[in-house]
Structure formats: C-alpha cells, structure tokens
C-alpha cells in the first residue's frame, strides 16, 4: 500500500504530531515498510475462519460494584506538570 503525503498528514494530525521536510520523507518510508510487513498476512487464506480477537479464553472477568479507597487528591495531582490544589491545569482550550 502506498503511503501518501495526505495519509501522513491525516495520521499525524490524529496523533497531534508534525512531520516536515526530511522527517516526512522518512516517516513515509517507515510507514510503508510497516504496512508491507503486515501485508504478508494477506497471503494466508482465511476463508471461513472466524476472526480471533482475544488470545485468552477468559470471559466475564467482572468486579463487584464496591467502592475501595484509592489515591488522594494530592496524589492524583502531584505528577501533573501544572496543577493547583484542586485541578489539573492545561493550556486554554476555548478561545474567548
């Protein structure tokens, strides 16, 4: 499958990344290699074979609806680059 500039731009946008100049050429080549590698799977005839989604046979791994104390507010916030005592702080999302 050919990886076009449009595909790179689209995926980069979704991942919030930017590729320009040589970076873009390189990532195009890398992505093409990855896709070609995976494409080898298409050689296998899977006619009539149910898709396998999960590797384990486990089903219904559920938990009871029971509250258990976890971390404190201070612990929740401490690793964030910017926060006050109540909230995570990030760059303004909405333009006024």
């Amino acid at each position, binding site marked *: 499958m050919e990886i076009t500039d449009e595909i790179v731009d689209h995926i980069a946008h*979704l991942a919030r990344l930017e590729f320009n100049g040589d970076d873009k050429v390189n990532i195009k080549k890398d992505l093409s290699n990855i896709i070609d590698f995976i494409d080898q799977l298409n050689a296998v005839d899977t006619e009539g074979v149910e898709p396998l*989604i999960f590797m384990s046979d486990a089903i219904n791994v*559920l*938990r009871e609806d029971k509250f258990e104390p976890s971390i*404190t*507010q201070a612990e929740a916030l401490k690793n964030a680059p910017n926060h006050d005592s109540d*909230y995570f*702080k990030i760059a*303004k999302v909405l333009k006024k």
Partner: protein
Amino acid sequence: MELSDEIRNKYQPVIGLEIHAQMLTNTKAYSNDKNEYGSPPNTNVSPITLGHPGTLPKMNSKTIDFAIKMGLACDCDISPEQHFARKNYFYPDLPKGYQITQDTTPICTGGKIVIKDDEGNDKSIALTRIHMEEDAGKSIHDIDPFNTLIDLNRAGVPLIEIVSEPEIRSSQEAYNYVTEVRKLVRYLEICDGNMEEGSLRCDANISVMLKGAKKFGVRVEVKNMNSIRNVQRAIEYEINRHIVAIENGEELYQETRNFDALKGTTTAMRSKEAANDYRFFPEPDLQPIKITTEKVQKLKAEMPPLPGALYSKYTNQLGLSSYDAQLLTDQKDIALYFESIIEFTKNYKGAANWLMGDVKSYLNSNAISIKDFPVSAERIAGLINLIDSGAVSHNLASQKIFPELLKGNDSAEEIAKKNDWLQNNNADEIKDIVLTVFKENPEEFERFKNGEKKLMGFLMGKVMQKSKGKADPKSASKMINDLI
C-alpha cells in the same frame, strides 16, 4: 425569519436522538473509585481513571445488569456475546486518549420506545441499539482566565447510550421521547435522570426533506441541551433554520452544533474538515462478556412494573381517564402507592382523586416525597371506603379526618367514631331536625315554600348546625323538599 404554515408544511423533519444516561452505580465503569456527583474536584479518582501507564480496567458487573434492564424495558434483543472497543481521540478530559465503549457488539439491539405523537396517539420509535461506555472528565473554562481546569471525577462514570432510529418527526415527539426515556430509567432506578446535572444528556440528529422525498436532507447534530424543554427548542430552531436555508437555495453542512439556551439558537461547533476519525478497534484489556438466558431471566424477574404497562392497566382495566393514568404513572413512587391503595378499595377513581388531590397537595406543601408520607395506603383506602359507605361526607373526610390520619395510626373509621363524626342517615331523626328548623325560622320557611329557592342554603345550614354537622346532606335536602 418567520415561516408561513404553507412553507413549513411542505417539509418533513427527520429526527434521531442519542441519549446518554449515567448509571447509578456506586463505582466507575472500569475501576472501583466512587461514582458520585458533586464531590470536591479530582477526589473520585484512581490510577485507572487517570489513565496511568500499566493500569488495567475491570468491568463493573452492575453496569451490565442495568444495561440489560433498560434493554428489557425497551423490548430489545440482549446480545449473548459482546466485547468492548476503543474509540481513539485526544482531548484533555480523556486521560487515556481513548474511550472504552462498544462498537460492533452493543449489549442491546433493536427494541422500541412507545411515545405519544402530536395527535396524542401511540407511536413506536424504533431503537438502533443501547451500548455501554464511560463518561469523560470535565473541562472548566470559566474559573481561571489563563488555563483550562480539568476535573476527572466524572471520568470513567458508567454510561449507557440509547440510540433511536431517525423515526421522530417533530420537536414535540422528541420532547415526549426524552420524557419517556427519563421515566423509564427512573422507574428502573438505573439513572436519576437529572438533565441539569448532566446525568441524562441528549444529542439530536436533525434533517428536513420535502414531504414524500425518499432521501433524507443534510443532517446536523445538536448538543448541549440541558433540559427536555431545551431539546424541543433546539430542534424547533434547527428545523426552521434548515427550511429557511433550503427555501433560499443556501447550502447546509453536515456539522455538530451547540445550543445556546439563552438565545435559543445553535452555532457550529466543529467544522466538517476536522471530522473525527476514531479508529475503533477491540479493547484488548477487557475480556469478552457472555450473557446467559438464565441471567436475563433473573433480571427480568427483578423488573419493577413499568409506566407503559401501568398506564394500559389504568385506562383499560380500571376505567380511569388517560389524564389520570398519565398523572399516576408519571412518577414510580406515586404509581406504586396507587397500586397499594387499590389493593384495599375498588373505588379506583376515588383512589386517584385522593392521591392526586389531598395527598399530593400535602406532599407539595411539606416538600416531601410519597416515601415520607406518614399515612399508609391501607388507611387512605379506609377513608375512601368510609365515604363510599355514606358514613361521612367527602368534605368532612377531607377537612377533619384526613388531618387526623396524618397525626396518628387510627383508621379513618376509628377517628370518625371517636370524634362522633359519623353521619346520621336516620330518616326519623333528620325529619325531627328539619321540622324543628322550620318551626324556629317561620319567615324563611314561608318564603322558601313560596318559591324562593335560594333559601335552601340557609335552611340546610341550620339543619347541619343543629345536627352538629352529622346529618347526611343528601338525605337532609331531600327531607326539606319532601316536607314543604
């Protein structure tokens, strides 16, 4: 622009609704931190909710039960096998960078919600699906002038999303549909249905087409309507906007629009160029779910009576008016109280009148719910039966016995006996009283006899006074007419 009915009637609105309902579980969908509205910010969180690397979700069994109950209430098929999916997008209040939802295998498929159409007739709105997912956190834009603040208490709160087919045809039908869904989740006690707090949210997909057209018009999605009334207003606004655009030959865009409740208008939120590509794929961290017939049967047995079934029972079997049936089934607790009353009396209309009259106004003036009402359904039924037996008048029951019922535990009959309020139906005694009244008020008696009918009230008053309010008014008035 005001549209004439003539232009308006050329077009057919087509509406589909997506309703998100927050489940009334104790804990989150995939982790055991608290699901609670109104806690201090970022206190109902855990490493899973925060999306820390290496954490693994684990499904809350209660969410599955709740979703199945909603499916059963809507006549859906319950999927025997299902799994979860990742919906990928970046937004600051979505810490993992994806939402765990269901894509190809929703827990419920098909089904319907029965509503009233604009003419008041029953109409079935088909459901596409009901699936389970999680809520995002909250972004707060108006506290800090320089930053957006993030509160992740809501992140991971379990949701069900109820998706209708585009079978709703007017803003009134949409209003009735959301009202019905809210009533159902409240009857099932799986969601509190509070739209102001966002525990029930509605997105509307709206398009219009010429009547008789085969192809739907350009569709927009409207969000941010925090009351059922606003759902109706937003849809009405959009229908109008679409028709005006089509009439003026302007192009409409498929886009997401935001409703502004103050102005009553909608504005574009996301442009179509930035259309999202969610790259769904099966969620590898949650194992598939299998639901047995036994499990579904067990949940079915736990289901409360539902408003639709109660409504039919009241109108078809009990002979109540559609208005009464509507009022009685509006809230589950009221309906259940009514169900209890009619175990003890066959006077269904009387039971409805007492419940929606004296009882309801007591609840309102004391700002309490029927759960805290001090009088048992059996004692209210006793009061109704006492009136029906002719032992007390409705007025006396309402003004004197009802307040006494509220105070203690005596039955209506015991209260009436103790206070000597039982009516006198004894014809001889009433005759004596009437004759005494005639004798003591000769002038009024003469005038009444000569046709001055309005003096009936005066004479009745005297009779009631003499009998200390115990004479049965019907017998007394008949006696007065018989004796002149």
